[in-house]
């Protein structure tokens, strides 16, 4: 398993006779990348989901198209926990390359399902084995030779279904859902499922305690990944223009965007498109196109990841300074540099906030769930046009590419805010126009769009120094007046961005601060800490610049921990700067190995510093 180290630290000896473990364990499917196990895993997740059992899947895949090891973990949790867990009790060992390490990673009493022709270097005695006659099953499946490698994956679906008591009717409808009801495909796949299940029933009596049982915990919810949610949000935000350059893990956002727009944004009569998507030659061009479209008055967006963000630096600074709206998604992957393209991190928070040379400050949104990806998907446009500045939405690979349960998304609760745009009539009424004049005292000035017919509405947009009339100026007073106004605008932004979500617990001495995909692990960790006698409050940051709620929260707690997935504790640094009087006492808990955060890591880190029994720090 990917994180050998911590895992072994956690396995406990098996206690016999063993009580049943119902709806509370993790399945890990270790396969070869490209073998096509996605259908198998999606089917299992959906079947469990429709049985009403809280479930979450995480794809730990390599930066490779075919051949390297890949792991998929499925967490079944009656308590509704969705964070990664270090220990996986049920192993599907379908990858010879990693079989030994995967077996070693099992906790005592764990389950190992594997092809009967696979050899393990060292056989563990404290593990329950279920060998499957894979070759034979595949042969008998009647699947086209070309498809055999693929169909083999359905065998573990069948075996798990039988062993864990997954409802086969649900498995079948999951397949139907996956293949959009195509009977031929459903049958081919389901045949293999049943064959495997029958073999298990006939020859492999159950010896392990793990099973599932129907619940009522997922009613009305849906399953979706964050990138699709973000794309959907953008569509309901009225996006008209998208420019992008492919990069993992952001590609699927634009794939989804294209599909959603194709479905919803064509003229009913002519069939012509009311949107445009351009695959740019690189990220520099992508953001250039977005700013050009935003300047012209359209809701425009791009999506990328770390390397693309670096390439966008110069344009990001220009967008900030020339005050042009645009939305840039950064689906964070592990950096620096090319880093680990298929692993998660929250490493771009600080660099993106300061993106650009000179004194640049960007507006950043930090979705903590797929639902927020949807909401920020449309809200980002309102903010970008209201503030006339690029808005960065920092999601990550875990939220973006994995399947999450969520309440159905809510339709936007307010009309689109197109910001301060003057029509020809407005200019006529005003009798004058000064692009960078702060008439309202909020630092946000009025703009006109190209095509405005009023002779006074034209102005010149530039990245060089300018006065209130957008005329080139090198005057020291013009320059500092403009920077001071931009600073004021940033202060206004503090009041407009989504405020943090706070769960204040009476008497809690310790406050946790986190953001983005760390949320699920934090929620679980707080329960663990409570169980250990430590009550905590929790503030989830949802945007930069930071604002008053956070300062208040810090003031209300003796000890503050900022938990995040990067090396330098980037948010921790930004909070130190925002609340300098607590800079020395706010603590950083940073996790940075490419894997999603686990509750155990957070809990141990905090308990390592806190002694619940006495009311103070160790």
């Amino acid at each position, binding site marked *: 398993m990917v994180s050998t180290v911590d895992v072994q630290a956690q396995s406990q000896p098996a206690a016999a006779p063993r009580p049943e473990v119902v709806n509370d364990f993790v399945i890990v499917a270790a396969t070869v990348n490209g073998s096509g196990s996605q259908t198998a895993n999606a089917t299992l997740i959906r079947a469990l989901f429709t049985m009403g059992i809280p479930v979450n899947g995480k794809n730990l895949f390599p930066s490779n198209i075919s051949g390297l090891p890949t792991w998929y973990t499925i967490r079944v949790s009656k308590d509704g926990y969705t964070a990664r867990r270090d220990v996986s009790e049920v192993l599907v060992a379908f990858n010879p390359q990693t079989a030994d390490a995967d077996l070693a990673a099992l906790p005592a009493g764990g389950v190992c399902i594997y092809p009967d022709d696979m050899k393990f270097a060292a056989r563990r005695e404290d593990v329950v084995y279920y060998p499957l006659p894979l070759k034979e099953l595949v042969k008998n499946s009647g699947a086209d030779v070309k498809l055999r490698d693929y169909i083999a994956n359905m065998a573990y679906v069948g075996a798990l279904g039988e062993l864990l008591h997954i409802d086969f009717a649900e498995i079948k409808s999951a397949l139907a859902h996956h293949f959009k009801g195509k009977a031929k495909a459903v049958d081919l796949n389901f045949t293999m499922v049943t064959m495997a299940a029958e073999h298990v029933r006939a020859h492999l009596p159950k010896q392990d305690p793990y099973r599932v049982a129907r619940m009522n915990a997922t009613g*009305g*919810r*849906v399953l*979706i990944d964050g990138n699709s949610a973000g794309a959907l949000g953008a569509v309901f*935000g*009225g996006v*008209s*223009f998208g*420019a992008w350059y492919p990069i993992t893990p952001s590609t699927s956002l634009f794939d989804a965007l294209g599909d959603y727009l194709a479905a*919803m944004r064509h003229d009913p009569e*002519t*069939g*012509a*498109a*009311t949107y*445009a998507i*351009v695959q*740019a030659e690189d990220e*520099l*061009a992508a*953001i*250039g*196109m977005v*700013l*050009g*479209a935003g*300047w*012209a008055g*359209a*809701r*425009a967006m791009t999506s990328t990841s770390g390397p693309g963000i670096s390439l966008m630096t*110069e*344009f990001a600074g*220009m967008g900030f300074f020339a005050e042009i709206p645009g939305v840039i998604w950064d689906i964070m992957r592990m950096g620096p540099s090319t880093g680990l393209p298929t692993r998660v991190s929250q490493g771009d928070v600080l660099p993106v906030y300061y993106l650009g040379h000179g004194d640049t400050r960007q507006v950043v949104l930090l979705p903590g769930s797929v639902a927020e990806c949807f909401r920020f998907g*449309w809200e980002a446009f309102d903010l970008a046009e209201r503030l006339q500045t690029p808005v960065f939405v920092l999601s990550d690979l875990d939220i973006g590419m994995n399947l999450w349960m969520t309440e*159905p998304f809510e*339709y*936007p609760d307010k*009309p*689109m805010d197109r910001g301060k745009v003057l029509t020809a009539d407005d200019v006529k009424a005003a009798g004058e126009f000064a692009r960078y004049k702060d008439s309202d005292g909020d630092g946000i000035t009025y703009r006109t*769009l*190209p*095509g*405005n*017919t009023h*002779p*006074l*509405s*034209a*102005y*010149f*947009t*530039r*990245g*060089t120094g300018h006065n209130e*009339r*957008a*005329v*080139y*100026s090198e005057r020291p007073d013009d320059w500092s007046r403009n920077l001071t106004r931009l600073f004021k605008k940033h202060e206004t932004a503090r009041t407009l961005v989504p405020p943090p979500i706070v769960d204040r617990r009476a008497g809690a001495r310790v406050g946790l601060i986190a953001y983005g995909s760390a949320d699920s692990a934090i929620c679980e960790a707080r329960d663990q800490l409570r169980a250990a006698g430590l009550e905590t409050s929790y503030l989830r940051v949802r945007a930069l610049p930071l604002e008053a709620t956070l300062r208040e929260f810090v003031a209300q707690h003796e000890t503050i921990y900022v938990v995040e997935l990067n090396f330098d504790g980037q948010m921790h640094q930004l909070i130190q700067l925002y609340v300098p009087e607590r800079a020395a006492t706010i603590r950083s808990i940073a996790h940075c190995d490419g894997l999603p955060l686990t509750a155990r890591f957070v809990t141990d880190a905090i308990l390592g510093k806190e002694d619940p029994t006495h009311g103070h720090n160790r």
Partner: protein
Amino acid sequence: MVTTANPAPAAGSKVNLVGLERADYKGNPSTLCQGCGHDSISSQIMAVAFELSLPPYRVIKMSGIGCSSKSPAYFLNRSHGFNALHGRMPSVVTGATTVNRDLLALAVSGDGDTGSIGFGQYKHLLRRNVSMVYIIENNGVYGLTKGQFSATADVGQKLKYAGTNELPPIDLCMEAIIAGCGFVARSFAGDAKQVRELLKAAINYKGTAVLDIISPCVTFNNHEDSTKSYSYGKAHEERLHDITFVPKFEEITVDYDPGTTITVKLHDGPAIQLKKLDKEYNPTDRLAAIQMLEQAQAHQEFLTGLLYVNESRPTLVEVQHLVETPLVHLDAQRLRPPPEALAQIMAGLA
């Protein structure tokens, strides 16, 4: 320094079809060197805009960074302008014209802006056939940064450190043709008549129209100086004056007939050969155009006129099958799908 955003129209001058006077197409006073070819081009742009009765609000003035890229501030003050980043104007224009297909993009770039830092964007813009007029004010040097050689400098010119320039010049017209551009022309800043004719044709072309205009840099073409400006410790044998001194020159003007060749002596001594395509030349034959350019390059002469035309290629907005209404004019109902649409998708995910 620029002081007024919209000078009043000069009285008495006659009015065009959209009821505007020449003065309505003016820009701010130029801050370029006296005699700079770029200013000659700006004059022709203003003249053509007036003569074609272009409504200023339909025009967007786009540019990168450089002396040439500054010039949009010196014409058409009633049109919106965007002075983008160095070499990145093409991407900005792509975004702007795609979301508002009614806009006429008049873009001005330089040989450094287009041929060096912006070369990738230039070629990919041409490949997409974005609707716009792409004017390159080509002087073979980086004017604004004081006279380094650009990638269009001729073989044989002196390079700052490596001695004589042995690097082949990039021919931006050849590059355009190869990239599939359907309107490729070359002219000389001083040839007012030809510049105007080509500008009018370019404005009436639906895709990307490239106009590579040789536009001498009066200040830094003098290689002896430019290669030495700022330089430390070199003997300036004959110089009697300050290296920052910029003498004033008159703009060069030429007028010659199709099919003929003339030699133009630049301010700084060196001369260039201009050969105007004759009336019989058929600009629709791509291979012939390439051939002509290859030969002209061999003879170290600049071929001027409309080199290549191809009306058939669809533009980017056509390829994208966009609605006739500019996307920026779509109302909220057409931008944000109804609640039912969301409900339906949610149902599919349940």
